[in-house]
């Protein structure tokens, strides 16, 4: 299968290793990976702020670039939800409505693609460490992904998964919310940091790097840096 990898803007600029890991994993599984050069952002920031026309000007080129893709894989539950759930709303009543629906149907969040679409959980990974997993809210509630990342982590040799308390509580990132309401966002994040540290895990893993960036940003400022990894970065270890 030819897999079109959509690497979100913050992963491209800040966490390239996650994208590189996804490329390696998909290739190891025998798929051909392509990465459209033109696209970086799904358009979620203007969409979530209510500026739909501006969001369409960002999302339009994405749709065009993904038009002929056999399967689109996104390494973020949040951007995945944007394409899969919100593009059909965003483009409803426009000439691109049908295309938005087609692209949405062919788009997968990374862990969901491996487990649900490909039926793969065993990737031959080995990662001897204590790990806790954070569910990003968009992946969890918009896309309903909870089991897939755990099924994948469950097959990683040497890995001990320690679930945190209040695992389904938001970390407080929320995109522009984090800077529009910094006090609330920080307070929410502090609660999440507490749950994470309580597990005693060495690594915090997620399928959403934006949440990890928030949690890590808080912990780092408090002088308690914790190692963060995208799920793909764990699965690629051998």
């Amino acid at each position: 299968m030819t897999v079109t990898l959509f690497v979100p803007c913050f992963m491209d600029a800040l966490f390239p290793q996650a994208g590189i890991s996804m490329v390696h994993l998909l290739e190891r599984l025998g798929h051909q990976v392509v990465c459209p050069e033109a696209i970086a952002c799904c358009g979620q920031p203007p969409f979530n702020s209510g500026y739909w026309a501006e969001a369409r000007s960002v999302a339009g080129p994405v749709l065009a670039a993904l038009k002929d893709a056999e399967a689109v894989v996104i390494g973020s539950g949040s951007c995945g939800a944007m394409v899969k759930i919100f593009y059909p709303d965003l483009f409803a009543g426009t000439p691109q409505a049908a295309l938005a629906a087609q692209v949405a149907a062919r788009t997968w969040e990374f862990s969901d693609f491996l487990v649900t679409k490909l039926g793969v959980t065993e990737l031959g990974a080995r990662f001897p460490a204590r790990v806790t997993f954070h569910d990003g809210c968009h992946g969890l509630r918009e896309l309903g992904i909870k089991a897939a990342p755990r099924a994948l982590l469950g097959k990683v040799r040497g890995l001990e998964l320690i679930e945190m308390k209040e695992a389904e509580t938001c970390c407080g990132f929320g995109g522009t919310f984090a800077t529009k309401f910094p006090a609330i966002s920080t307070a929410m994040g502090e609660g999440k940091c507490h749950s994470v540290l309580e597990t005693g895990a060495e690594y915090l893993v997620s399928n959403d790097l934006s949440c990890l960036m928030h949690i890590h940003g808080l912990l780092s400022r408090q002088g308690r840096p914790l190692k963060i990894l995208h799920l793909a970065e764990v699965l690629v270890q051998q």
Partner: protein
Amino acid sequence: MNANARQFQEAAQRVTGDLRQRQFIRTALGNYETARDLRKASFQSWESARQTAATTKWQAINHLDTHLQTLAANLEARGTKVHWAGNGAQAREIILGILRDKKARSIIKSKAMTSEEIHLNGALEQAGFEVMESDLGEFIVQLRHETPYHIVFPSMHLTRGQIRELFEKELGATSSDNPEELTMVARRVMRQKYITADIGFTGGNFAIAETGMISITENEGNSRLTAALPKTMVTLIGIEKVLPKLADLALFLPMLATAGAGQTLTCYNTMYGGPRQPGEADGPEEWHVVLLDNRRTELLADAGQRDALHCIRCGACLNVCPIFRNVGGHTYGTTYSGPIGSVITPHLRGLQDWKHLSNASSLCGACTEACPVKIDLHHHLLQNRRNAAVEKPAYWERLGYRIFGIIANDPFFWSLTKKLGRLGQPLHRLVKGATLDPAGAWTRTRDLPPLARVSFKEWWRNRS
């Protein structure tokens, strides 16, 4: 930023800085969640119960006109006087008119968020009437001259110690911190009022069209006394509280109790069908039901968001909301706080004045997941944001997104942005977290990750 938004930001700053209160609320609502999950498990299928409830409310709201007519006709058939109030001012006038007509002086009141919505207590006191809240939590916040902190748990922000001190100061009563003893203090004060009050005022949880009944749910029995002892009973209820059939309560009563307080059933559930009928020994001689619109019909006209009228005011969305848990109820500055308040307040009180509440959300969706009648709460927050931006865009924000639109999906500009970012990043260290920091809203409490030396796209290009 308008005054309401500024008030919200300042209050949020203050409350999130109060670690004791944050911990207190988090613990209390954590306990609620445990109890709720236990009760949910006793439903054969909570999910199909939610679906049935949502369908019933859908039917009720989509045929609200018919159900309201049936309700009014059935109420009137047993001698109840039905009043229609288009807005808060009309509702206050109707109620004041009844009080003057009855030459009343004192009113005993059971819990009603609609009365908070129309600021009834203030209006009554201003007109020279004496009002006492009889729900313990409401009684406490009334003594403190505060509004309810939470739509179901009005005084949940207070410790027993604070309540003891309040009773000492306001009622001259000495007591320990023991909840039972504190309750007895309040009861002694209230019991006198039940007997002497001219008017008993209540809200209502459901209005049953089929039988012309108002269903009231409570844990303290105060509502029953409020309704039963004074000669005149007045009930104020929002028009969206209509349920078509009496049998609907078989689902809605346990659902309200489970979602709202983690109870199997609330302790007292009463159906009021009319004033004292010929041959009956007790009950009020007159019953007035005031049906309140107050811009609910405007929300009804909005096909995309009218499911917000399905709300049964259980408070489940507040209880699970991580924003509510960190900022508390008073921060919102509204009658209805939490996710449902953020959804409906812009409709009830003006979009531009209250749009900040819809922005104050990470859109995590915990509210939607918790809502027993399946209101699409967090997507309505998105819709409110959109409506606000269409009606009155913030020009700087829109300009920012237009520039972003040019940069983000253009390979040349995006690559240039990353390169400039790498150059700028060492300079950022000089101002990080300071007033001059353009990223200050983030960096005051959080570090930013460094830009990668080689971005993914650069890696990909080099590779192929």
